[in-house]
């Protein structure tokens, strides 16, 4: 496969944006400035970006409680996201959604979702819209390894096969669901084999390898756009941090994450190949790094300084018409 360097630069920018964003969020949570539960995406950047590089604003994604990375990969505005995480006026959802319920329909982002397994049924609805309108749109649901056990997820896969929906099930196997390991909670099952049982192509890839995700996704998107129905991709990439910020992670052996950082960091992995094989310049990547750091610094400042929603807003937006 060959890759457009402009696409690759864009992909790098998005992965780096996620990394910077999440590392900053981590420090902010530790400093106590962020309300609610926060679940970080570090280590899994290549999944969201490898997937979303194939999608337009008119394609849709359904997300999870660990949704920051999906939002950034799908092109949501960084400042809008931060304002939302800080629950401020002008946030993507005007502060009513917060970290676990961020959405941006204009960018085809159907919402983070604090109900595990909540998003796939919604995402197949977006796929149905594309099918009925015949607009070659596709929809994708990000689904955790833990979420892969939820009945709603199986139902969604099944419905998608019956109706040959233009749908992609992107499983993010990050090794854990809360404080339990996937090797246990998947029982005798295997995400990919289960998906295959529903009669759709199902592949397993290295989720820390942007190119692996991107390639698998290319075929899944082609199938979907050509009306051939749904596909499943299981991307394996351990999460670097706890289930939520504050998790003591006693279930992990010491040094596991240090090891991951060394051997499986999606960013250096990408950079190595992209610079070696596809001519990206290390220089320009560092410029991107710098630029993103500034953007995020500024956006965090803006978010912190922004006004809180006013009390009467509690009552608005329940209905479109009353």
């Amino acid at each position, binding site marked *: 496969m060959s890759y457009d360097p402009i696409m690759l630069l864009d992909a790098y920018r998005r992965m780096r944006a996620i990394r910077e964003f999440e590392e900053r969020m981590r420090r902010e949570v530790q400093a106590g400035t962020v309300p609610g539960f926060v679940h970080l995406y570090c280590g899994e950047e290549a999944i969201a970006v490898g997937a979303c590089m194939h999608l337009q604003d008119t394609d849709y994604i359904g997300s999870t409680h660990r949704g920051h990375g999906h939002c950034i990969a799908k092109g949501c505005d960084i400042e809008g996201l931060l304002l939302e995480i800080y629950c401020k006026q002008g946030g*993507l959802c005007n502060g009513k959604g917060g970290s676990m*319920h961020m*959405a941006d329909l204009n960018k085809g982002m159907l919402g983070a*979702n604090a109900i595990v397994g*909540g998003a*796939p*049924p919604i995402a197949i609805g*977006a796929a149905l819209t594309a099918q009925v309108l015949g607009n070659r749109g596709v929809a994708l649901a990000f689904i955790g390894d833990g979420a892969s056990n939820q009945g709603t997820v199986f139902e*969604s896969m099944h419905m998608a096969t019956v109706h040959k929906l233009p749908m992609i099930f992107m499983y993010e196997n990050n090794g854990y669901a809360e404080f339990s390991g996937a090797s246990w909670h998947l029982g005798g099952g295997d995400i990919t084999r289960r998906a295959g049982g529903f009669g759709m192509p199902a592949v397993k890839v290295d989720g820390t390898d942007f190119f692996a995700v991107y390639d698998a996704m290319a075929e899944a998107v082609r199938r979907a756009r050509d009306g051939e129905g749904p596909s499943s991709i299981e991307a394996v990439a351990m999460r670097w941090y706890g289930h939520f910020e504050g998790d003591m992670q006693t279930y992990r052996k010491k040094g596991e994450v240090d090891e991951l950082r060394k051997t499986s960091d999606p960013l250096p992995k990408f950079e190595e190949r992209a610079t070696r094989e596809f001519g990206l310049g290390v220089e320009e990547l560092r410029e991107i790094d710098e630029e993103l750091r500034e953007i995020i610094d500024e956006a965090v400042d803006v978010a912190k300084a922004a006004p809180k929603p006013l009390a009467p807003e509690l009552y608005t937006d329940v209905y479109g018409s009353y």
Partner: protein
Amino acid sequence: MPQKNIRDAINETLKLEMRRDPRVVVIGEDVVGGLGGSSGVEEAAGGTFGVTAGLAAEFGRRRVIDTPITESAIIGMAGGAALTGLRPVAELMFIDFIGVCFDQILNQIAKFRYMFGGKARVPVVIRTMTGAGLGTGPQHSQSLYNMLANVPGIKVVLPSNAYDAKGLLTTAIRDDDPVIFCENKAMYLDACEVPDESYTIPFGQAAITRPGSDVTVVALSRMVTLANQVADKLAGEGIRVEVVDPRTISPLDTATILGSVQKTGRLVAVDECNPVCSFASELVSLAACEAYDALQAAPVKVTAPHTPVPAAPDLEQYYVPSLARIEEAIRNTLGGSTASARKVV
């Protein structure tokens, strides 16, 4: 004007709205039927009770969509389609099945607009069947609309006749908010005059089906029929019963209900739900909090008891509010009391 029953009025409404707007699609189990069957017939069902008959023939299977038995995926898919540009009318065959898909209603569809800061439109209608009386037992006879009225973000509609069914369903399909449309399964063949052309009935506007000044009876769905009958009977004795049919319980036309109670000073709330946290309790609470000074007697609730719906028709008849119990409640609140209806309940 032509007479039409509720089933046909709903069917006609679906057709009119699908003709009017290509984004309207119908989704559900066996809304057409026959796929994978050995006869190859085009339509084997048209809905369990024939409500969606003929839709596929006119609009094709791309817009009239059969599904496997998978309610979370049905309701969620309808919600997701609504978020992204369609106007789905999903069928949840019996409201009792809400348990297998409740998250998609409670936490997803109902909350999209709010969670997303007002930036979502969620034009989805969920048609479903409610009500006891047909001997279908504990898992196919419930009402449960009280739970839905409790959920912010959805609208809840309960037509009591074919004319209202058509007008309210038209409004529901054109509305940009999620609507649960409750069809009482014992009423599909109830007929009245229904115009052929489209019309809307606004949400949150109660109908006074019997004007009166002695006592206010608020009733829903099939209970309106019973309340009207009792009102007619008591009129013969000079008791002027006002029957108010809210038609939509979320939003609720509190002004009309309170206005009636203010006039009569007496309230009987008739409701097929189980009693605790029921819609009847809500009505009584509304009157007690907002029309306290006008009340001249204790309000009375006529509801199902705090039991599941029994399979035995001989028990079920005592489960559902009856003419006798409604009449007794009216007499009680007027100060009299007939022993008769108390016997059993």
